[in-house]
């Protein structure tokens, strides 16, 4: 120890200069305030989000109140575009259909996902990690290709039809497989599966296993135990899963465009049309806003309902 003291001078001495003056005060404030340091670290991301999501959405909202005659866009405040939506029954039908399709997709996805999440959470002992990876990996990969894969499966000359034909089970290809809402629902349920499994799995995994044992000792059979303990405790995951699937699928464009046919088109396709062939941006903006508003209302109603169920029962 003694010889190491020859280096003894400390470079960690305080700086007297930092004590007084405005700089000292600022420095003191910064050191003292955790919040300030936190906001500092968070600010680049917040600025990015404001620029790439906040500002564009505000501008889109403004645009929805502008009007367009032929190619001339007039700024101002007009409800014409919303009036157009209110007049055109086709538009409303398309939005209604989109909400219905997403609703079905949500229910189907969550129902299919729950047993899978339950299995991984409670019955997989050794390779949980492998199972989670197996479930997640496909969902990081190209959405476009996954949707396209269903076109190959369900198409007129697709896997199912050509397979059944070559086996001699059917004479002519089944036409009801593709270009309808059913194909859209099936494909979306497949494409968004991980968004349902993961939150449900997390909420199931968090359940203290001794609660289940307690329920058993108190006389509940497996079925009662599931409905009285497991399901209520995993509701947060189910609710999150519903939102994660419902919100983005309402505006989906790729799936209805590839697999929907005329009967399976959704609001996203109409919005895209306004920004492409129809070239009526203000109307497209208004349609987007109407979609966002409907989604928000449904989500709020859903959250209110689930909260009521959880606190007061049905």
């Amino acid at each position, binding site marked *: 120890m003694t010889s190491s003291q020859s280096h003894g001078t400390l470079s960690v001495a305080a700086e007297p200069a930092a004590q007084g003056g405005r700089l000292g005060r600022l420095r003191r404030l910064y050191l003292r305030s955790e919040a300030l340091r936190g906001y500092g670290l968070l600010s680049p991301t917040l600025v990015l989000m404001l620029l790439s999501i906040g500002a564009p959405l505000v501008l889109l909202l403004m645009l929805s109140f502008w009007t367009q005659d032929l190619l001339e866009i007039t700024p101002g405040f007009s409800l014409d575009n919303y009036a157009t939506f209110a007049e055109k029954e086709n538009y409303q039908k398309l939005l209604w259909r989109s909400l219905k399709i997403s609703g079905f997709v949500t229910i189907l996805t969550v129902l299919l996902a729950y047993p899978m999440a339950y299995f991984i959470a409670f*019955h997989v002992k050794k390779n949980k990690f492998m199972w989670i990876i197996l479930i997640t990996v496909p969902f990081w990969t190209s959405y476009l290709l996954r949707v396209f894969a269903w076109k190959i499966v369900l198409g007129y000359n697709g896997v199912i039809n050509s397979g059944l034909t070559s086996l001699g089970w059917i004479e002519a290809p089944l036409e009801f497989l593709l270009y309808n809402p059913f194909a859209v629902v099936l494909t979306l349920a497949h494409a968004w599966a991980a968004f349902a499994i993961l939150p449900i799995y997390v909420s199931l995994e968090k359940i203290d296993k001794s609660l289940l044992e307690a329920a058993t000792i108190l006389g509940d059979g497996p079925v009662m135990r599931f409905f009285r303990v497991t399901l209520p405790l995993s509701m947060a995951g189910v609710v999150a899963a519903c939102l994660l699937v419902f919100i983005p699928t309402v505006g989906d464009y790729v799936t209805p465009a590839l697999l929907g046919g005329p009967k399976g088109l959704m609001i996203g396709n109409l919005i895209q049309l306004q920004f492409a062939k129809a070239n009526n941006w203000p109307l497209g903006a208004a349609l987007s806003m109407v979609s966002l508003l409907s989604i928000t209302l449904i989500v709020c109603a859903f959250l209110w309902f689930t909260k009521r169920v959880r606190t007061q029962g049905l």
Partner: protein
Amino acid sequence: MSSLAISTKPKVRLLGIYAVAYLIFIYAPVLFLPLFSFNDSTFIAFPLKGFTTQWYVEAYQNERLIQSLMNSIKVGVPVAIVSTIFGTFAAKAVIRYRMPGKAPLVSFIMAPLVVPGIIVGIALLVIINAVGLDLSLFTIGFAHLAPCTAFSMWIMISRLEGFDQSLEEASLSLGEGAWMTFWRVTFPLILPGIIASLLLTFTLSFDEFILAFFLAGQEPTLPIYMWSQLRFPAQLPPVLALGSVILLASFVLVYIAEWFRRRGTHSQESGGV
């Protein structure tokens, strides 16, 4: 899978069978892409005609295809780096500091993951148009930053949750400032999460379609190029070949990423899904 064999109760076995069926449901449609990419026929239909690698050769020789592949990489690499830096700092702020209004801010940052892509796409198109920028690879990259940063923050939050705060405090008390503490202590310990974030955000950007669909200028990314080819049945087999390569590459990248992401936090079992 091994646990299936152990469980003897019929209920559990039923659940196990369901799980396997579910995996088939998830994987089977995707596996038809590579299957038909080796089929010696321009028609994508059964029965299979024979084995060929012709479509891969065609895809490889297609200059526009290779160019769009390069474009996707040109977008994906910087997007992955920038979004991982932003996401890491944001996650650090969220985990480390007490801040008023944290929850709504986090929800705001996560918003790009749920707002329908088409609405984000047109909104960005409108603002880019208003500012007077030309559509280019740059605008696509900018659009990809928001969802990729949100994902990166999510990944890094799950990585940082198990992080022992006293390690950083020890470094501070040993005379290192915030910056050197980050490089000497925090960074090496969260490196697996950072690698995972880089790989996953790259994959996300590389495969992204809807934002690029609205914001692509003269240079298409790979998904945009594939989309343009899907309309022509004659073009399908090379697209299948290309798609199979992309799927394989994505699978490998994501698998490595998940392996990194769960390494270390693995012991917590449920940690960071």
